[in-house]
């Protein structure tokens, strides 16, 4: 267990040292979300209408951009070989890296969401549910992303293939996430959607570390 937390701590430390990872993901999120009002025009009612969708898509895309960080660097400098050879089971090793990714790349997005939501003219009820939905649903993003990252890790310029593999699988999260927020805004029950998101997270938590570990075994061959 000690090795497990050690690995998480190392990954967080690397993320902090390597050009302040937090601020960058964050800023990408902010830029991607603010591009929309620019593209769509500043009419408040339309903005409020598309707000939840824009925020969720922004989160998806920012998360996507950070996925290759999960394994690529370790692969390139040979650390992955060593991590695979360690006595920590590969599935747990993968899980540790997924947790580190979630903490460094996804959690900051959740924290900044309220500010962006206000700027998109979202009602207060919606904002809290938005954060809740992100909290419950976003682990899926890191988990599924890790499988994609594992599959493409050996490839030069796997980035775009990665998006192609991962984005379609993100769609259910997007649909239920937006549905939850819109239900909350329309003062309808949002419980079922949140539960579905939680279910997705749990399912992914079981399957994805195993699949990612299998993918990594291929990559180091």
């Amino acid at each position, binding site marked *: 267990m000690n090795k497990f937390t050690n690995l998480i701590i190392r990954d967080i430390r690397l993320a902090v040292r390597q050009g302040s990872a937090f601020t960058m993901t964050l800023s990408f999120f902010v830029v991607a979300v603010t591009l929309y009002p620019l593209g769509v025009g500043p009419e408040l009612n339309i903005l409020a209408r598309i707000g939840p969708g824009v925020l969720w898509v922004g989160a998806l895309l920012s998360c996507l951009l950070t996925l290759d960080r999960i394994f690529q660097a370790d692969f390139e400098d040979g650390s992955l070989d060593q991590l695979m050879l360690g006595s920590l089971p590969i599935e747990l090793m993968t899980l540790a890296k997924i947790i580190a990714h979630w903490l460094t790349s996804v959690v900051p997005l959740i924290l900044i969401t309220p500010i962006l939501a206000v700027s998109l003219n979202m009602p207060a009820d919606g904002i809290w549910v938005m954060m809740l939905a992100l909290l419950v649903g976003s682990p899926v993003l890191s988990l599924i992303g890790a499988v994609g990252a594992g599959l*493409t890790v050996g490839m030069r310029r796997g980035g775009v293939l990665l998006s192609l593999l991962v984005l379609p699988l993100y769609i259910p999260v997007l649909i239920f996430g937006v549905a939850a927020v819109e239900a909350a805004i329309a003062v309808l029950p949002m419980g079922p959607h949140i539960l579905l998101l939680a279910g997705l997270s749990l399912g992914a938590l079981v399957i994805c570390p195993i699949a990612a570990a299998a993918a990594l075994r291929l990559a180091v061959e």
Partner: protein
Amino acid sequence: MAVDLHKFANPARFLRITSAIFPWAAIVTVLLLAVGLYLALFASPEDYQQGATVRIMFVHVPAAWMAMSIYVMMAISSATGLIWKHPVADLSAKAAAPIGACFTFLALVTGSLWGQPMWGTFWVWDARLTSMLILFFLYLGYMAIWGSFDDQSKAGKAAAILVLIGAINVPIIKFSVDWWNTLHQPASVATMDGPKIHSSILTPLLVMGLAYTSLFLTIFIIRVKAEILGRRLRILRLAHVED
């Protein structure tokens, strides 16, 4: 020679069997397609509301069936490849993928052509249509993975992992019409209580379904053969380079 012979003992038998089936499959395909198209386009009754457009159904519905069942077949053969390491398993999934993608594309295109008269738009973002689009992306991603690895045995395993994860999508497509209220028709042929439509429509539908299946089989045999021979050729060429 630089190859494990046991690896290719099986494909040899496989090639023999498929070569024997191939001419029959081709003939059956032609016959069934002819009968099916005749039944669908000429013999079946026009719908009292939709008129002739209802006939898109005979292309659309079997194509959608094929799209899903080919994916399931790929998932099964990928699992076989991962677990029992059977050499033909990966290759057969690989050979099926483009065919499945074509059927998916056909279902999408005919569906949206049909949507224009029926729903007044080519495309809506409801659960059935969206999950079908995801299926199409999964096919594309699967083929892209094969293209991205130099090492074919690695590519096979990586692609297998993707297919298996994406398999969750198939029940979503199938039951999306029940789980969410969609514009799209709920199932009426493949239901728990048996088919619920009239035989004048059901018969051509089933004939077209069989025709598509044997069309798939025909193309599939050609492609698997090409894959196996291609792999052999590569090995021979490398062996030649080595000497």
